[in-house]
């Protein structure tokens, strides 16, 4: 199902960090840093409790376009800075906008915010095959 992608095309994605998400992502990815699975460690680090792995937030950034295209094999480049921790109960909204098309690929910039409107990623961008 081909999507009509043009400069200015927008698409959205949403994910919630459930209580078990850092544990599931630890199991899936191998990142068992205690800051993600031990509330006491999170508290001692001044974070209030566990925080979600940044690379899970990054995976959800990828999901923004894999869901839109219904094809997980088309991302050519993906990057982001981790600007704010994500904690249990946070709902993240990813808003993507196509900013350019060339050479059979499109570029999209993505804004990722939590439910308070705070940006959890900065400079999030994707380069994707059409």
């Amino acid at each position, binding site marked *: 199902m081909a999507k009509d992608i043009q400069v200015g095309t927008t698409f959205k994605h949403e994910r919630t960090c459930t209580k078990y998400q850092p544990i599931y992502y630890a199991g899936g990815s191998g990142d068992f840093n205690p800051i993600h699975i031990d509330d006491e460690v999170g508290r001692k680090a001044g974070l209030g409790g566990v925080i979600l792995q940044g690379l899970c937030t990054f995976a959800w950034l*990828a999901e923004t376009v*894999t869901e839109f295209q219904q094809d*997980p*094999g088309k991302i*050519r480049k993906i990057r982001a800075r981790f600007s704010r921790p994500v904690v249990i109960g946070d709902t993240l909204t990813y808003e993507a906008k196509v900013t350019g098309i060339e050479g059979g690929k499109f570029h999209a910039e993505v804004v990722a915010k939590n439910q308070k409107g705070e940006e959890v990623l900065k400079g999030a961008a994707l380069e994707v095959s059409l």
Partner: protein
Amino acid sequence: MAIDPKYVGRTYGPYKYEVGLEKLREFAYSVAGGAPSTGFTGGPPPGLNPLLWDEEAAKKGPYGTVIAFPTFPVTFAIKPFGAAIGDKDLGVNVLMLVHGEQEFELFDVIRPGDVMTTTGKISKIYGKGGMDFLVVETESKNQTGKLVVKGVWTAVIRQK
């Protein structure tokens, strides 16, 4: 204490990783909010793209096999980054470290049975705003020698 920039150029690896179908599925399930288990619990989270887990659907799809979720390289291409962070010569204080930035460039999909070989090097060390930045660039090739993924991994360490 800042990290000595003389370590720019230090290399780590090669590290070998064998890609398995069940691990690809588990990773995809976990990203989609499900337990990373294919043998113990029920199936994939509802709505998960079949190309990520369903062999029959994937056979008829554009890639011919189940493929990895695009950020799957975090499971194996991180080795040089971890090695640099743990390198006693650099003296990184991991208690002060956060993962600051991540980038992947993907040249091909990753399939069950692929054997990935990853090498990495410290590409940048610099200080800014009371923080140390340690940047490691990795390259992962599959068993045919093809470059499949390049990674740029940035750690930010608060100076003390």
